[in-house]
């Protein structure tokens, strides 16, 4: 269990990550705001508490992997990475500009620490599955019978509820269960919006939890803005996975219920903020609200 002081610290960090990403989007003049803001708490929990990583050595061989499948919310990842020390926070103002390492959608080769180039939806989970299978091969856990070898690296895949429309995602869901990928944790941002409107109107996906369970995944639901609950949940899951034999393991889906544009009351819950950036005046107002 994470202690309260640490949680308070993390909340401050997530506030800074929000402010930085709003400034970056306003400076860029385009980009995706709602999903970036609503995932700020989870990115904070990952980069500042859960992930085994080294900002000064992004390709460290023993790192956990964070695959961002819905690449359009990359501004929150860039902001979290900058605050974690991967690159100077001041570089965020180059977002989406010519020559920038911070491409409109992430390009792996431009920015060390980005595990995969993304943007086109529905293929991140498959890549995470590939990385997880590689981990299973390397640790001897693939096809292992009753030999409890520890999970060495965790593969986190961040994805969105809208992205579940993609067929490719479900191909990966099936394979992950077949391969008993206990080293894979998919985190689904259930913010209920996609570009054209609310997911319940464009393409209903409920119940996401039932769908994943029926595909033989282990599923948990959490408030995506409760940093403490999220961290405690991930740590509980990792302990549980390590305690069972490889052939009994399952991939894990954490459905994180979030509020689009969380942190800026004027924008919260509105799908119109999915694919647009704030003006400089709007950004100033929003940042003032975040103190």
């Amino acid at each position, binding site marked *: 269990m994470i202690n309260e002081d640490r949680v308070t610290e993390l909340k401050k960090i997530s506030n800074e990550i929000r402010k930085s990403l709003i400034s970056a989007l306003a400076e860029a003049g385009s980009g995706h705001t709602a999903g970036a803001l609503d995932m700020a708490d989870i990115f904070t929990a990952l980069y500042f508490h859960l992930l085994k990583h080294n900002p000064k050595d992004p390709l460290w061989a023993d790192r956990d*992997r964070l*695959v961002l499948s819905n690449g359009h919310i990359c501004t929150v990842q860039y902001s979290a990475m900058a605050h974690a020390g991967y690159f100077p926070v001041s570089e965020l103002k180059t977002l989406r500009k010519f020559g920038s390492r911070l491409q409109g959608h992430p*390009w*792996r*080769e431009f920015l060390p620490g980005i*595990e*995969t*180039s*993304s*943007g*086109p939806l*529905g*293929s991140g989970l*498959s*890549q*995470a*599955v*590939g*990385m*997880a*299978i*590689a*981990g299973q*091969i*390397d640790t001897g856990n*693939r*096809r292992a019978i009753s030999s409890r070898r520890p999970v060495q690296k965790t593969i986190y895949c961040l994805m969105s509820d809208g992205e579940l429309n993609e*067929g*490719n995602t479900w*191909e*990966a869901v*099936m*394979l992950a269960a*077949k*391969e008993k990928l206990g080293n894979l944790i998919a985190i689904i941002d259930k913010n209920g919006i996609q570009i054209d409107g609310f997911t319940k109107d464009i393409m209903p996906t409920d119940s996401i939890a039932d769908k994943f369970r029926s595909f033989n995944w282990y599923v948990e639901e959490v408030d995506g803005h409760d940093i403490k609950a999220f961290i405690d949940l991930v740590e509980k899951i990792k302990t549980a996975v390590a305690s069972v034999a490889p052939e009994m393991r399952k991939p894990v889906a954490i459905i994180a219920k979030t509020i689009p544009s969380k942190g800026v009351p004027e924008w919260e819950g509105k799908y119109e903020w999915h694919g647009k950036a704030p003006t400089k005046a709007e950004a100033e107002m929003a940042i003032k609200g975040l103190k």
Partner: protein
Amino acid sequence: MHEIINLNENLFETDVEKETTRKGVSEGLLLAGQADPRVVVLTADLADSTGVGEFRNKFPERFIDVGVAEQNLVTVASGLASAGKIPFASSYAVFNPGRNWEQIRTTICYNNQPVKIIGSHGGVTVGADGASHQMLEDVALMRVLPRMIVLSPCDAIETKKAIIESAKIESPVYIRTDRDKTPIITSQVTPFEIGKARIFFKPKVGIRADVGIIATGPLLYEALLVAKELSEKGKNVKVLNISTIKPLDRDAILLLAHEAKALVTVENHQIAGGLGSAVAECLATEYPVPIEFIGVHDAFGQSGTPAELIKHYSMTKKDIIQAVNKVVLRKN
């Protein structure tokens, strides 16, 4: 210039040995897998019919069957590559790269992951299964992608070498194979390098070629028969084997264009976007000469025997001879 290429000694015999290029895939993967533990193989429910079943039997811990899911096939392969593996992803070419092109573009080429795509059942020679399973557009689809290397070996032995060499390079590679047994053209000692084209038939020393034939894949055999037959009638033909369509061996093509001043390209693929297009793109800016294209002209295949289909789509020896005669008349 005078490299010894040691082709199959029985090449022009009526009982020339035949083997499937898929058999070359099978042998190549076993050797590559033995040489490098990072080699992993994936398929989408087509292990035996694409030649990866032997690898599954020998290295089950490094074999992944993703089920009938070609988009997953290549994206999982990309993830494996990013974690340090050398993945070969194998299915029929109509699905791989036909169905999963965007995934190959984004997660393999753009992402710069050294995944090797094996597309079997290329060309109308798939036969009885019909047009839905006869891939005629794969070379075009793969050739247009930045960073993708495109291999189209001419027989089982060259396919084996293509697989082994692919495993050694840090680049995405597409390898096209056929379905049926095809004549063995090369031998174990015929040299093979990715990116290098080689002359497989030439006139006697000191005699200039009247026409150059540039061929890829098993149809190269037809081109070689043409060259032999015409040479006996006093017409001098050189045949260039293109086993790497991208990057194209521009030097070899320009050398042949300068010498023969008229070319025929031969491929079991759409004319649009295939080998003929690649050759024309190369020559248009450097040294334009008349070209005739043997291949499928903006059509789908259909059921039939490979021989019937090759005839129907005008890719036989006879058609190549006609193209040679025609292109000679177009010379300035």
